[in-house]
């Protein structure tokens, strides 16, 4: 279990590092907060219409604190919690209300509360993707149980669109990589992972939408699920290959053991980082391209910036289309690599022994 905790610790380190920089960026009002567009927030951003603050749920010193939003948390009677950016400076009140600045809630002495279970923007879009997955596939499965699509041809747009994808995942991903006889057990998991990631990625393409796969915690949870599926259903052969590699001299076995053991954890780690980095970099690329217009206006004056802006807008459009493609490819790659790892682990070489 320990390496899992270490992995979680690494992830925590990584995400807190990102949020720390975003806080430093927001202090300078003239800068465009690029990292702030990518990281998680405690509000839904509907610029220029406004923002919706999300509920705060904090567990501290054995007590639960539940507030409708961050503003009501900061304006409560006891000043137990405060916004992190108010620690050094004076409280600024607008209409007698404390306005959250960094949305990072700390105790009034500056330490972080025990657990912050607050609902964030990434979580909202994660739930939305889950609800859409359920709404699409529960009626579809009912249809197939009644016989439409099995005894007759598929009816309706949903059945026609998703049947091709489902068949593709079953035949070209699950059956190809896990092998006949065992793939039925893992097909539901692979389908769920594929469509969840796909819907989460597509939310990043929508206006005001956030792709929750650009959050390393989401991808880490997905990778941990694959890791668990791999290890729980692993064959004896798999464990033998890790701890006592067959067919090599004894000293080599001792050298191979830590290498193989490390390999167990690098696979899900790579899965997690790959999905996160691909989705986050797409966002950063789009904002960097649009930001070039403002850099040009500072370097060469606003006239040249206006004149060349169409280049960057066209390039952004191109990158947006690439992002749509990458959404598909990353969902596919995550699913096929999950299937590959599961297939490697559950394979007990029974076919080779039969020959």
């Amino acid at each position, binding site marked *: 279990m320990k390496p899992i905790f270490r992995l979680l610790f690494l992830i925590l380190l990584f995400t807190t*590092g990102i949020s720390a920089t975003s806080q430093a960026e927001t202090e300078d009002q003239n800068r465009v907060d690029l990292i702030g567009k990518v990281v998680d927030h405690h509000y839904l951003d509907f610029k220029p219409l406004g923002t919706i603050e999300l509920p705060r749920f904090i567990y501290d010193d054995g007590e639960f604190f539940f507030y409708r939003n961050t503003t009501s948390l900061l304006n409560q009677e006891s000043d137990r919690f405060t916004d992190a950016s108010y620690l050094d400076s004076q409280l600024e009140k607008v209409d007698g209300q404390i306005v959250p600045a960094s949305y990072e809630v700390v105790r009034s002495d500056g330490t972080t509360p025990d657990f912050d279970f607050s609902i964030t923007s990434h979580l909202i879009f994660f739930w939305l993707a889950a609800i859409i997955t359920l709404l699409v596939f529960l009626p579809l499965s009912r249809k197939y149980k009644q016989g439409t699509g099995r005894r007759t041809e598929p009816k309706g747009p949903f059945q026609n669109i998703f049947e091709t994808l489902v068949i593709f995942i079953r035949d070209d991903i699950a059956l190809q990589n896990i092998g006949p006889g065992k793939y039925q057990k893992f097909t539901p998991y692979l389908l769920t992972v594929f469509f969840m990631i796909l819907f989460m990625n597509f939310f990043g393409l929508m206006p005001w939408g956030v792709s929750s796969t650009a959050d390393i915690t989401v991808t880490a949870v997905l990778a941990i699920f694959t890791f668990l599926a791999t290890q729980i259903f692993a064959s004896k052969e798999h464990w033998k290959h890790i701890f006592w590699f067959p067919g090599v001299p004894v000293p080599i076995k001792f050298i191979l053991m830590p290498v193989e053991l490390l390999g167990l954890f690098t696979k899900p780690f790579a899965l997690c980082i*790959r999905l996160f980095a691909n989705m986050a970099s797409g966002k950063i690329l789009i904002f960097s391209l649009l930001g070039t217009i403002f850099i040009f206006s500072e370097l060469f004056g606003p006239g040249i910036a206006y004149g060349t802006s169409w280049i960057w807008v066209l390039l952004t459009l191109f990158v947006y289309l690439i992002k749509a493609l990458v959404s598909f490819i990353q969902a596919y790659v995550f699913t096929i690599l999950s299937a590959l790892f599961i297939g490697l682990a559950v394979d007990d070489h029974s076919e080779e022994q039969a020959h």
Partner: protein
Amino acid sequence: MEMELAHLAAGFGAGITTIGAAIGIGMIGKGAMEGSARQPEASGDIRTSMLISAAFIEGVALFGQVVCIILALS
């Protein structure tokens, strides 16, 4: 000074990992193109294994990028 050096190292590291990944993915693309040109009927299987090996190379490159990000944020 040390902070600047860390940022410089992060920039160099990101560039070098990208070169490595680009060489790797380019070679995979070359192999896949040649393979499917010789055997067009196997292009589906070749595409799948091309994507898988590209994903593995990408994974290694991303490890390098993560180190660079940690350096840049330090």
